């Protein structure tokens, strides 16, 4: 399934941007999530969506990932792969 970058960007700006910053660059103690392969981001989001803990902010990510559909996940991953701030 190929991701739709524009749809991914729109979905990103709904909630993800509030912690991870514009274009996934990271902000405060929330990590940079741009510049990764699509398979990496997809796998992380699906792991969180399944309720599995990875790092110290897992609880927050599990909460945020739970409502994501497969389509939204692959769109987000496609957007974030090449996303750049400014």
């Amino acid at each position, binding site marked *: 399934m190929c991701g739709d970058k524009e749809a991914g960007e729109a979905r990103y700006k709904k*909630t993800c941007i*509030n912690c991870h910053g514009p274009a996934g660059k990271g*902000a405060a*103690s929330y990590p940079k999530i741009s510049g990764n392969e699509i398979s990496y981001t997809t796998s992380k989001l699906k792991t969180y969506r399944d309720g599995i803990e990875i*790092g110290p*902010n897992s*609880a927050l990510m599990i*909460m945020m990932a739970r409502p994501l559909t497969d389509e939204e996940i692959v769109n987000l991953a496609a957007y974030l792969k090449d996303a750049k*701030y400014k």
Partner: protein
Amino acid sequence: MNRLSKTFSTVTASAVMLVGLITNANAMDVPTIKSTEVMSGLENPWDMAFLPDGTMFYTEKCKGLSVKTTSGDVNKLYGMKDSKGYTNSGNDLFCDGQAGMLGVVPDRNFDKNRTLYVYSTSNKYHGDGCKTNFEKCDGNIVMRFKVSKDLKSVSDRTDIVKDIQYKPFKSNQPFGGPGAHNGGRLRIGPGGYLWVTGGDRHRGVCPQDSKLLCGKVLRIDGDGNAHPDNNPPAGFDKRIYTYGHRNVQGIDFRPSDGRAFTAEHGPWHNDEITALVNGGNAGWDPAEKRGGRGACPDKYCGYEPNQMDAVDPAVRAAYTPMSDTRFEDLMPSAWNNNGFSQGTGSAAFLKGSNWGIYEGRLAAGIMGIAFGDTPAGSRIDMYDLAADGLSIKSVVHMPLGFSKRFRGLVMGPDNALYASTDEGEIYKITAD
């Protein structure tokens, strides 16, 4: 036109003119607010500090201390472990989560003594502590430097506070990584003393403890000694001005009377702006088995109940209040963000008649969160505080036209407000 309608239209015309005059007079007192980006591409710029000529020192949380001179040059003065390109570095300084190099402020007599104070996380004084999250871990310090006349280097580093606690390991909490609730703002008060703000570092017993410096606001001199008039409860470390804080990252002093006001992050509820009282208790007590509570995850009740899920803020506030009224020496908040927590972390009183009706109000930077049903809310607010500091008369969202994670706020010598953002910019906000 008959006489009646002529009179009517004259009266109406006069009324319109009168209203026009009144509207005009009000409009002249409401300033036009504009912002310009003065720096960008920074990494987590945390705080700024100005000299009267406009020289700007600033910190980047994971990189170090730099200065932007009046001619526009940027000199990297003091780096941290793994920083590159700095004239000098402290390899004991590091960042993790909310911890790192944070507050910066020049001494009141900088023009004579070239003295600059910087707050940072450091492993230099860990000693035998820091082996678990449930013991004393001295991991935050206040350093004093001499700045060279050409602003190209700093020297004579002296650690004037060595024992502010730090959270060394992750714990079973949301935002539970190391370095949590690390406070970090430094400001010089009206009497020339140094004020240092702290956080509870996710350790339940911290804020109410008499000796631990976590969850406290300190008032000290340039050598790290307690202000002689500090008045905490008997048996408390005398450097403590107020205790019972959760995580204070904003402090400034009201121009009319010098009163200290803090801006503090709430736990899923109730960010606070609070007027400080010498020796007062900000009312935060996240320890387990107190205040009617049972055991809590990793002995910290700060996010309970159901800390990993969205819960009505009012329910959480009842369980572990930001300002627990069971304390007789409680300093109640002036403002509590309508019961929400959205990341309130910096504060600066607006100075200068160019600010019009906003002159003397307290600006606070709110970074935004957007969890559960709490709206994101990134903005700068301006509060018209009541004289007694126990309430606000009004709050206005600063009409900036954009929304960022505002991390640091400080007035410049040009009566502009400078704001740093987590996204990496420093903005100059003018009012005319």
